[in-house]
């Protein structure tokens, strides 16, 4: 379909359709939206894309994405220094921050162990986590990787690696989501919730 359009439009459609979840149809609609929008808007979009590539780097302490190194969370002197929450990716930092419950700092692994995808410990920010634990006075490491096979194994790997050091390694609790009904959960969820039950 894009063969009927002028070259710059075809090029834009091709670029846009590379985004996850965007097919050629949606890409065409987006391209025409950009074409029709005021010049300033289109420029602002283009500049934002460039800015993201040029200004965003990884925090040298926790490897969260940031424009200023160290990142805002690591710079914040009110945050507890002795507790680190380990997450798979930057989006997970945002999810936990939204709760407002966690006052410590983070460590972003940028993935999980997955030999079939060629991801080993050296591809993740694990050595730097150990270094943080050894160098600083960290009392607890919360491993908040996803409760899938790879996330679980990564959590175990980290726990075993940190065993020689005087640090408590914990895992996020697994169980029932809020607002659900027991009869609709699978056995895995319910048995995990049973395992993690507590006194009220």
């Amino acid at each position, binding site marked *: 379909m894009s063969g009927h359009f002028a070259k710059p439009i075809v090029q834009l459609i091709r670029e846009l359709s590379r985004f996850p979840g965007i097919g050629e149809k949606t890409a065409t609609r987006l391209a025409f939206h950009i074409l029709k929008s005021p010049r300033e808007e289109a420029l602002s979009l283009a500049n934002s894309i460039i800015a993201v590539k040029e200004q965003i780097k990884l925090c040298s302490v926790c490897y969260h994405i940031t424009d200023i190194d160290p990142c805002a969370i690591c710079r914040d002197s009110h945050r507890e220094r002795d507790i680190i929450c380990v997450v798979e990716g930057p989006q997970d930092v945002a999810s936990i921050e939204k709760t407002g419950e966690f006052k410590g700092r983070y460590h972003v692994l940028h993935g999980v*162990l997955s030999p079939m995808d060629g991801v*080993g410990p050296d591809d993740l920010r694990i050595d730097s986590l150990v270094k943080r634990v050894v160098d600083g006075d960290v009392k607890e490491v919360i491993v908040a990787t996803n409760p899938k*096979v790879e996330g679980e194994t990564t959590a175990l790997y980290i726990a075993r*690696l940190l065993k020689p050091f005087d640090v408590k390694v914990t895992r996020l609790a697994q169980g029932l989501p809020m607002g659900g009904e027991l009869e609709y959960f699978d056995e895995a969820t319910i048995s995990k919730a049973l395992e993690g039950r507590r006194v009220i």
Partner: protein
Amino acid sequence: MIKEIVLENFRNYEEVKVSFNEELNIFCGQNGQGKTNLLEAVYFLGMLSSFRKTDSTQMVRQGENSFSISGHFEGADAAALSIEKSHNGWKKICADGSNYKKKLDYIGKVRMVVFSPDEMELIQGSPEGRRRYLDRAYFNVYHHHLRQLKIFRRILKQRNSLLKKDAFRRQEINSWSEKLAYAGARVVKGRMSMTALLNEKLDKSHPFIGRDKVSLQYMGAFNADDDYEKIEAKLLASLFKLRKEEEQRRITLAGPHRDDIAILVNGVIAKSFSSRGEMRSVLLALKTAETEVYRSVWGETPLTLLDDVASELDIERRKALLSFLRQKGEQVLITTTEVENIPFERSSKDSLFMVSEGKILH
């Protein structure tokens, strides 16, 4: 109990609707007319997979794009099931009006026991077939077993990928070993539970089996009363012992994926059986025990699918089997080439269907 099934473009059926009777439903016809296809459709509707070894890509009728199966049930976990599948994959998996995205959440709402000629593999074939049989059977008792198995397989795949690499950290393989042992213990324990349940029922001999005592034995370094922790520790110890060999062969050498289940007749492994009729009897004993396990666990009678049993069971065993099933009030779907092969008395609870060229006549 299955009340009704509707097939569209499934194998050799263009469009067919069958209303089943309460007890015996006999499907009679020459070979290649679609008798087994009908049993397969019933099974497929409940399990989303076939009990046959035939090519599942040919389930869509020639020249069509997709097939659909829907059915009504009584006393099952769902009253209405409906599925549609095209050459490209699943289009609809629906139970009681709800659509399912995950197959694991859908399957097993109707409990069924199948007896088909392909199942002879169970005795003669590879350990894989016996493991699959036991896993399937235990799934019907405890649905969670299949999830455990899926987790175990994922870990196994990851660990094997790691072993394929030229170098890895000791702690990395250790972590995968720990996970494998944890998940593996759950699979092993499940299979051992099912073995025990079946043996309990096999102890009571059935008239069509004769005096032979059939039993199962889960082959592995485990004891029947080992708990998860014990099995896990044993698996981990085996993995540790086999480390050198694993690194050479680059594959996981211990775990439930390598276990076997021995089928014993009077204490002797049934592989070495001579007569095919005898093997069929053993298979029947297993299947009947399976039925009784479900009955005692769920308090509900599974649907029995008997594909072409008459061809190889002698008339005495056939009679005994049918009267056994009848006395339990089970609903049975049975196929045969000759109606004389099935010793039945016409009653209001039985139906005879003639199957010919993808048409079913009552």
